[in-house]
């Protein structure tokens, strides 16, 4: 049985329409005019126990609204949510013991006090037994290095340390489900990596179900198998990360550095030059139409090449194309083979 079941979830906001100018402001103060805005429209999905799911979409797509509905902060306008057999808006307090929420932009730590004080507070709020608390703290010390800064006031922590502490704080009561709302926002690469590693370990060891919202595609690629893309309040993709790469990431680019400048290069059919600088040329083609090995053997047989790199499109640019409507994912056919392209010919990456 799925741990989270969402069906036809819809959320409308009432927006106060403000008119322009001073007169307009006065007018809308006296006779307020409202407009309904649909933030989330009939979305449905299910998540199984232990799954890690990425929830992505541009700003204002409805991600945070959905997360807030899952936690019971917001009541849905229509549709249903079933978490462990409960409805979040009706059984808010009960669900609260089963869910942990990390808001990347807001801390739940007490700003002026050492990190450990907030943990003490959470221990009594969630009625965590001494043994379970001790066990969790040991894990946090080991994996997040919490010990290094647990006695420091939160205001003195770096953003990375604060985030680590915040994540630990949301996990201290052993929730079955953790919702992350942009957990890596504003962090440097190393801090992000540390957090992703930790999340993966927790998922593995405790079989915790996790749902992320993020703008960082690397978060998704490194942690989740499945991703849900939401835009304008509706789900536009729900599937594996690999699948979307296969479906949409068909373009390959070969970057070759030639021994001398070649002006009139003759290329096989379907290969185009997209960028040129000095002796370096970027050549793009569709993987389904042109074989990578053919292009390479063609180039190496005709020209003197110093360096050669093959690039596959990053997930980020694929997503960008989906947002912009550049890809109609329903109509494209999936790729045929799984090639390990970057290892070919031992070229440098």
């Amino acid at each position, binding site marked *: 049985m799925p741990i989270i079941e969402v069906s036809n979830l819809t959320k409308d906001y009432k927006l106060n329409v403000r008119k322009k100018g001073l007169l307009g402001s006065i007018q809308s103060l006296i006779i307020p005019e409202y407009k309904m805005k649909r933030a989330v429209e009939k979305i449905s999905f299910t998540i199984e126990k232990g799954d890690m799911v990425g929830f992505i979409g541009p700003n204002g797509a409805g991600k945070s609204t959905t997360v807030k509905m899952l936690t019971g*902060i917001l009541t849905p306008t229509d549709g249903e949510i079933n978490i462990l057999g409960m409805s979040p808006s009706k059984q*808010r307090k009960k669900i609260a013991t089963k869910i942990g929420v990390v808001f990347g932009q807001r801390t739940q730590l007490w700003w*002026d006090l050492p990190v450990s004080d907030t943990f003490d507070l959470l221990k*009594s709020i969630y009625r965590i037994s001494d043994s379970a608390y001790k066990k969790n703290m040991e894990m946090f010390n080991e994996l997040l290095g919490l010990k290094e800064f647990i006695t420091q006031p939160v205001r003195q922590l770096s953003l990375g340390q604060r985030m680590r502490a915040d994540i630990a704080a949301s996990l201290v009561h052993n929730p079955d489900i953790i919702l992350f709302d942009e957990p890596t926002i504003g962090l440097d690469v190393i801090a992000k990596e540390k957090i992703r590693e930790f999340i993966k370990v927790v998922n593995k060891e405790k079989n915790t179900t996790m749902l992320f919202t993020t703008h960082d595609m690397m978060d998704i690629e490194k942690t989740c198998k499945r991703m849900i893309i939401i835009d304008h309040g509706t789900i536009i993709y729900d599937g594996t990360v690999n699948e979307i790469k296969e479906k949409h990431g068909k373009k390959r680019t070969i970057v070759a550095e030639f021994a001398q400048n070649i002006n009139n290069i003759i290329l096989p059919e379907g290969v185009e030059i997209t960028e040129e600088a000095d002796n370096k040329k970027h050549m793009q083609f569709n993987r389904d139409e042109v074989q990578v090995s053919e292009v390479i053997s063609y180039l190496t047989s005709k020209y003197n090449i110093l360096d050669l790199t093959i690039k596959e499109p990053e997930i980020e640019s694929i997503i960008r194309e989906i947002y912009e409507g550049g890809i109609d994912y329903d109509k494209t056919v999936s790729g045929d083979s799984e090639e390990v392209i970057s290892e070919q010919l031992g070229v440098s990456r």
Partner: protein
Amino acid sequence: MEQIKAYKKIELLKILFVFFKMNLKSMLEYKFDRFFIALAIFVREMVSIVVMFLILTRFVTIGGWTMHEMFFLYSFLFLSYSIFVFFFTGIRDFDDMVYQGTLDRYLIRPLGLMFQVVAARVDFAAILGHGTVGILLFTYSCKAVGIVWDFKSVTYYISALIGGAIIQAALFMISSCFSFWTIRTVNLRNLIFFNCRRFAGYPISFYPGLVQKLLIFVVPFAFVSYFPAQYFIRKPDLDMFWNGYLYLTPLVGAAMFVLVYIFWRAGLKRYSSAGN
């Protein structure tokens, strides 16, 4: 689905205690700064008292009230406000919690929202500032006013202070509720609250009928200071009002709190259905 156990009283008390301890520690982090906030409040309030003192030493009485009686009346305002802040700082700062998203965090914890709002904050500087003024006024005046402290009068005194604190909490809560509708009312609230409070620093019998009615029925500060003080000193101007008012302070407090709590629940419902 297993049932979660309801919190035992002892567990809730423990949570209250941990919150309290954290507030105390937070304050001690900035003891210097907090001390000056308390001092600033103390000085600000003492200025009006010194002015009152200077006027009263020259004219002896105002409307038959002596200086000691006036100060005794005034002490109710400070002591009850101090008690209000001690228990309900969270209600005073509630709109802040809504705007900063703290409320969302409380909503994802397995505890009642009102409990967390009340437990989460204690403003020691305000308690100290107002409390010191109140205690000074009380000790200066209570002997001269001539109160016989027996069981009945002590009970009355304590219940009047607590009732007064709850009346003020309810007034603050009304304004807090508007933040559920994303309407900021802090300044309107301060305008109404603190000016009515200033009125209530004098016997309400001084004022024209309209202001008296305002202080009894609309912003019932009369039950915070005038009627409790009159219970003890019985100045003749009490004849202007129904005698039963003397005993109504706790009742007014309780009734207001219940009504405002219903309004608050409605606001919370609207918050979760509309978002912020």
